[in-house]
């Protein structure tokens, strides 16, 4: 009897964590010492330095908040450290997450008989690269030798699909946790699960309901008991923590009851310490929670709409996360989205369940396959751990002979045979090819787990012992490669972006592009540093995208001075879990640089945040003035949207100054959102100019394409012309600039076919030569160009022009916005 592998999945949540183990047939949830399947993501370090995590730590959240930390998942990927004053220890977010993982690992060990070494950990779909990297790091710190990541919605859908009968169509996964909201649109068809798209909000969750409710409680305290507390006053932080805990308890109670009593003891008031009892009914809670719920549903609607799925085409919605236990939430979803809510699924454990299934799919058993000491020949196998295909492929290849290789192994495998352990299926005898490889398929037990034995035979028919002896495949859903949630690229010196891996690209993925340096990197110079900022986001301006890391090439590491315009081959690579690695190859130096200076969400000092908010307010005021003058209702409304983001950013900033650790990030996020809308509005405001420019560009291109273009180019141009007109009518600035790019390209291509094109470009470039970064070199180039022109050598002139362009410096303002990028 082949012993079954066990697979482990962990939902490492902001508020709570859960874990599941799966043996190919049954799913079990990991229970802590108290028998609970839901483990609070809380860590406490006492004065002796003893670390506790989980429910034992959670008890101290109220009485000893200084030394008891939670919600560190929000800080994953930042460089922030959390202080535990009693023991004078500092911990990074991955270190804290590792403490939670350790508790899970130990508890699982008790349950399955050995400490798991490999597991799948889920991360929110909108997690950016540094956050994923920090999660992997946490797994490593907890003692796992290998972890794979899975996006939470994929895990949820996998678990929901597994338990339910397979049906085909679109699904929506709605996951509202303590602090993050994910909406994902998935499609199941032909037994294949595909994530079509996802959207969400990294800062929306049950915690916001607690926040609203604690604000309401503060108002009651003020009105009814004369107790004044303020969120921006650090000395009130303690009372707010208590209010929040009380609020959360009451909220959870109200998911089942219609009324809850909150008791707060020993509140200091003008009349001395008092005990306060406040009654909260469900209607009040519902009203307070509604903005959060509505906001989440709007994200869903946006997602569904953006992907052209009609509401009626949605098969069902899978609800995940604690707050989805609230009746008002389920009701609003049913009403507004008009989709049946999948019932009978546990919103708290679904993600862990799916992660465990995924561990099997990606063949990551909790205990890695032992490498045997015996001198056996081994096969390297390729097959799906889970497949919807009843007869999936199994491939294998002999690995190099073991040992020193001096003595010829007794018997070399010549053929193999696969057979199912229940005796119901047996494959034919299969000869290995010249590379020692085989390709075949096996027959699965429908909707069950099949174990296959692998046997190898020598040429004379005798059995040759080989590893592995068996393999396991489950008949179920196939998951396609996870798509990248946000475009990854590089910021250029003019604040534009160069896209490397587009949103939606299946992972893993890798891309190399050649870029050019803007200025000299002096050999051995301490002061000279070339920055290649890596960004994530879809905005055309680099500064609106999120900086996720910076590749750096320092002068002191450079063996020869790099002139401006030197080629740098930048490679960005993402693994299945969205972990990023980056490297830059400089051909002139024949060297690879792979130091990513900081793969972290940059912190912003409160003061510079405040300044940024103020400057955004000023820009907004300008837009408002115009909107009033032109009685533009639409513009006014959108300005209101910016205002809301800015107001929230300001509130978060106040809270950050009051000592709430993740508020800075929140403020920054809101600021980014505000700036993105602002940029759009400013673009719209300059709409007449934009349209004017578009028409000129089009005229230019039309002329050149008519003169020197190909038939295909003409066709593309007239299509683009129609699209421009449509964008004009719909006042869609993004689409307009997209089409304009195409128009420009077509025009440029035709333009450069003119025999004199490069001569004209040369005139233009040499007229701005006074701005060049290396005037002497530029002057020499101009001379060279003039001579080439005399000879009528267009190719040489072109070379000169390109080198001249490389010497013209980017605008410093754009450069600053583009995260000080040193390349273009």
């Amino acid at each position, binding site marked *: 009897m082949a012993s079954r592998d066990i697979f482990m999945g962990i939902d490492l949540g902001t508020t709570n964590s859960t874990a599941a183990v799966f043996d190919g047939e049954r799913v079990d949830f990991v229970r802590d010492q108290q028998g609970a399947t839901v483990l609070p993501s809380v860590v406490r370090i006492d004065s002796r330095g003893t670390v506790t995590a989980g429910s034992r730590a959670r008890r101290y959240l109220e009485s000893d908040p200084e030394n008891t930390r939670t919600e560190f998942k929000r800080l994953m990927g930042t460089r922030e450290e959390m202080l535990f004053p009693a023991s004078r220890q500092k911990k990074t977010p991955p270190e804290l997450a590792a403490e939670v993982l350790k508790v899970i690992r130990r508890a699982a060990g008790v349950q399955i008989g050995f400490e798991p070494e490999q597991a799948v950990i889920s991360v929110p779909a909108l997690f950016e690269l540094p956050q994923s990297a920090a999660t992997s790091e946490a797994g490593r710190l907890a003692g796992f030798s290998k972890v794979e990541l899975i996006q939470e919605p994929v895990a949820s859908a996998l678990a929901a699909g597994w338990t339910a009968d397979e049906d085909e169509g679109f699904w929506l996964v709605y996951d509202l946790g303590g602090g993050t909201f994910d909406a994902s649109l998935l499609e199941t068809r032909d037994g294949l699960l595909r994530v079509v798209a996802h959207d969400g909000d990294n800062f929306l969750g049950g915690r916001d309901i607690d926040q609203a409710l604690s604000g309401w409680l503060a108002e009651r305290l003020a009105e009814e008991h004369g107790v004044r507390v303020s969120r921006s006053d650090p000395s009130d932080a303690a009372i707010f923590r208590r209010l929040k805990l009380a609020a959360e308890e009451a909220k959870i109670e109200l998911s089942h009851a219609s009324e809850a009593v909150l008791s707060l003891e020993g509140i200091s008031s003008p009349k001395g310490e008092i005990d306060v009892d406040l009654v909260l009914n469900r209607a009040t809670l519902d009203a307070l929670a509604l903005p959060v719920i509505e906001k989440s549903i709007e994200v869903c609607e946006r997602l569904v709409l953006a992907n052209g799925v009609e509401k009626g085409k949605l098969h069902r919605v899978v609800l995940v996360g604690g707050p989805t236990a609230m009746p008002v939430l389920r009701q609003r979803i049913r009403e507004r989205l008009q989709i049946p809510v999948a019932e009978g699924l546990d919103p708290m454990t679904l993600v862990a369940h799916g992660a465990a299934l995924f561990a099997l799919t990606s063949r990551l058993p909790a205990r890695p396959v032992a490498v045997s000491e015996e001198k056996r020949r081994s096969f390297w196998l390729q097959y799906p751990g889970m497949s919807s295909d009843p007869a999936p492929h199994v491939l294998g290849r002999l690995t190099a002979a073991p040992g020193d290789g001096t003595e010829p192994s007794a018997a070399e495998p010549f053929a193999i045979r696969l057979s199912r352990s229940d005796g119901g299926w047996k494959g034919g005898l299969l000869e290995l090819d010249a590379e020692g*490889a085989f390709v075949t398929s096996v027959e699965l037990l429908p909707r069950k787990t099949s174990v296959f034995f692998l046997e190898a035979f020598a040429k004379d028919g005798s059995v040759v012992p080989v590893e592995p002896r068996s393999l396991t495949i489950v008949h179920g859903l196939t998951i396609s490669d996870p798509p990248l949630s946000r475009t990854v690229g590089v910021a250029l010196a003019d604040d534009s972006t160069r896209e490397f891996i587009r949103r939606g690209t299946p992972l893993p993925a890798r891309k190399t592009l050649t870029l050019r340096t803007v200025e000299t990197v002096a050999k051995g110079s301490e002061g000279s540093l070339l920055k290649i900022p890596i960004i994530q986001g879809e905005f055309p301006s680099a500064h609106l995208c999120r900086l996720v890391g910076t590749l750096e090439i320092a002068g002191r590491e450079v063996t020869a001075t790099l002139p401006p315009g030197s080629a740098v081959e930048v490679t960005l690579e993402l693994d299945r879990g969205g972990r990023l690695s980056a490297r830059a190859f400089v051909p002139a130096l024949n060297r690879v640089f792979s130091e990513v200076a900081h793969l972290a969400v940059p912190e912003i000092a409160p003061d510079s945040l405040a300044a940024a908010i103020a400057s955004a307010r000023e820009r907004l005021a300008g837009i408002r003035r115009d909107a009033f003058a032109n009685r533009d209702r639409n513009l006014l409304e959108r300005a209101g949207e910016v205002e809301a983001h800015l107001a929230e950013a300001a509130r978060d900033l106040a809270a950050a100054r009051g000592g709430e650790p993740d508020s800075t990030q929140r403020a920054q996020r809101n600021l980014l959102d505000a700036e993105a809308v602002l940029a759009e509005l400013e673009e719209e405001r300059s709409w007449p100019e934009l349209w004017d420019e578009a028409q000129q560009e089009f005229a230019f291109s039309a002329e050149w394409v008519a003169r020197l273009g190909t038939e295909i180019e003409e066709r593309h141009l007239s299509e683009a012309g129609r699209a421009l007109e449509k964008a004009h009518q719909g006042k869609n600035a993004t689409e307009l600039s997209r089409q304009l790019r195409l128009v420009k390209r077509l025009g440029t291509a035709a333009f450069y076919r003119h025999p004199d094109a490069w001569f004209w470009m040369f005139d233009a470039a040499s007229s701005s030569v006074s701005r060049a970064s290396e005037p002497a070199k530029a002057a020499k180039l101009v001379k060279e160009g003039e001579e080439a022109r005399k000879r009528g050598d267009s190719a040489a002139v072109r070379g000169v022009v390109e080198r001249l*362009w490389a010497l013209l410096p980017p605008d410093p303002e754009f450069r600053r916005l583009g995260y000080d990028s040193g390349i273009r």
Partner: protein
Amino acid sequence: MKSDLAGRVASNPFLVLGITPAFSRREMEREGQKLLGMLELGMAEARSYPTVFGPRPRTPEMVREAMAELRDPGRRLAHELLFLEGTAGVDADRGEKTVGWSGAFSALGLSRWPSR
């Protein structure tokens, strides 16, 4: 310039996966999985694929991308048309005319509109 047209035709997902539009989605997935396995094992047979322009190297990234392209029904349709066009009508004599805008543009070595 001709090589650019070749590039576009030769990177058609059907060619990369070594299948034709007659393959169903399920069959496409099977072929893709098989190729990924073979590439992972370093089997020589999978490391290139034939095109009318001669053999082209095949990487796991290309296979994954091709599979993703063909999973999307709209995109698949476009590739089907290009596949049929590409294999049926590559006519060397048509020369420059058929290079197309993207070919012409990148043949000029320009990735961006020159700043003015």
